[in-house]
């Protein structure tokens, strides 16, 4: 993995008697989109608040850009843009004024406001009070605010919460484009696996305050054990053929013409489909059958009481 932008060491936060975050060792490399995954109340937001210095860890340290956050908070935060949970905005001010209020503090040129407004496509709405904005627009304004200081690290907590499908798609495209276009590292939290899967390169899973998985998205796919379902016209013949080429397929209980295969690489799967087709077996569908996040959590945490 490339040089670490965020590195936490045994990061712990105790809220009352509860361990909100328990000995977390995050490691996020330069240029990654890190998906920080976990069910509601798992400790994602608490972790992110500690990464931004909003709350103090009970124990452990946070290093960002190789510097100790507690000691160099201001110089670290100058290089970080963030959007924590629901967007924060001043409803009585226009979008432009909202950005200006932050710009004064960051001390960046005024032209940055127009730049970030165009990135999130709010230029036309710049002169309208934010209280009249839709949630999607407020969320985009939040992203614009986070981008204002040209950060090298972007921390986004549940940026797609409450957005409609087109808003989610838009947000996802925006986040995916950041590392490529601007060389940023992005930490994005979510409680939806499908969401993270579509944009992250690295994944960390947190449950009950503990980091239970941290690796590349590919490794997660392997781990999650997703399977391939193939629907054909002659189930038995196809099954035999696959078996002959060394693949142990399973019958689906409800339909003998549907076969379940273990997760295969794209090339291997293409080879199998070709094999079936060449042997006059009609392939109707090739689908990936994913297991739900809940199932995976149960497996990863090794018990039914993890959720």
């Amino acid at each position: 993995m490339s040089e670490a932008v965020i590195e936490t060491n045994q990061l712990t936060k105790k809220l009352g008697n509860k361990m909100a975050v328990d000995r977390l060792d995050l490691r996020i490399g330069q240029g990654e989109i890190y998906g920080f995954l976990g069910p509601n109340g798992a400790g994602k937001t608490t972790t992110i608040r500690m990464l931004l210095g909003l709350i103090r860890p009970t124990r452990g340290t946070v290093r960002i850009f190789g510097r100790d956050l507690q000691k160099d908070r201001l110089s670290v935060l100058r290089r970080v843009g963030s959007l924590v949970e629901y967007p924060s905005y001043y409803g009585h001010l226009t979008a432009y004024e909202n950005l200006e209020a932050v710009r004064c503090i960051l001390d960046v040129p005024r032209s940055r406001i127009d730049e970030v407004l165009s990135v999130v496509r709010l230029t036309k709405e710049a002169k309208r009070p934010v209280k009249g904005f839709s949630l999607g627009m407020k969320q985009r304004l939040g992203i614009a605010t986070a981008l204002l200081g040209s950060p090298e690290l972007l921390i986004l907590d549940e940026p797609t919460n409450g957005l409609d499908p087109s808003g989610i798609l838009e947000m996802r495209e925006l986040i995916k484009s950041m590392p490529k276009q601007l060389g940023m590292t992005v930490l994005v939290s979510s409680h939806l696996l499908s969401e993270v899967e579509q944009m992250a390169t690295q994944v960390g899973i947190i449950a009950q305050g503990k980091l239970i998985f941290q690796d590349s998205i590919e490794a997660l796919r392997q781990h999650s054990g997703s399977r391939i379902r193939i629907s054909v016209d002659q189930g038995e013949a196809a099954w035999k053929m696959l078996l002959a080429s060394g693949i142990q397929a399973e019958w689906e209980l409800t339909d003998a013409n549907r076969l379940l295969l273990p997760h295969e690489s794209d090339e291997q799967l293409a080879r199998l489909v070709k094999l079936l087709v060449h042997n006059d077996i009609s392939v109707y569908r090739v689908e990936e059958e994913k297991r739900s996040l809940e199932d995976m959590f149960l497996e990863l945490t090794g018990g039914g009481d993890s959720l």
Partner: protein
Amino acid sequence: MMRGVMASEWLKIRRKGIWLLIALGPLGVVGLQALNFFLRYDYLTKRYADDLWGAVIGNVHQLSVPTLLMGIAIVASMIAGIEHQTNAWKQTLALPVSKWCVFACKFTLLCTLLVCACTLLAAGTVVLGIALGYGTDIPLVTLLVKSYLPFLAAMPFAALQTWLSITIKNQAIPLTTGVLFSVLCLFGTAVGDWVPLKWLYLENQWNEPFYSAGPGLLLGLVIYVIGLIHFIRKDVS
């Protein structure tokens, strides 16, 4: 850093009606005294014949004390409320800015607005005195003392209200303490010299207004530092 945060604070209070409030306070006080003096013109002019300007300034001052306390509570709550409304604290404090600076700027903003109100009060008093036909021989020192020193004496309340408004999300609480103080201060002259509420009336056994304003400034500083330390140590929700 402080300049940037201050500029941001000024921007945030736009269109919030705070300026209207700052103008309304002193104008209300002067207006009520105008009513008082015009309705009882002959009586009051005869009674205070020796010191007509002193009477106008003194009466305005008496009424300005509860107004000042109420104003402090409302304006402090509005300034902090801007952040509480959409929980913008997390956004503001995740910026490269120290917590003490944010707290200090909110307090400075409140004080600056109050000085504006005091200035308006002084100006309004002069207009009232002239309108009453009390001449232009204005006792400037008395006017400035009675217009600005209560503000210094009110520092403990300004610091306390800023602290409460910033650290408590439910603004009903700081507003209640504000109302409580402005009611209690009506009995301010009847209590001992050591009671902060009395300081606002600038009355003490030495008959020296600075002996009321000085302790006010000092206690204000102490409460301000305690509030500041608490705010810095507190987690941001």
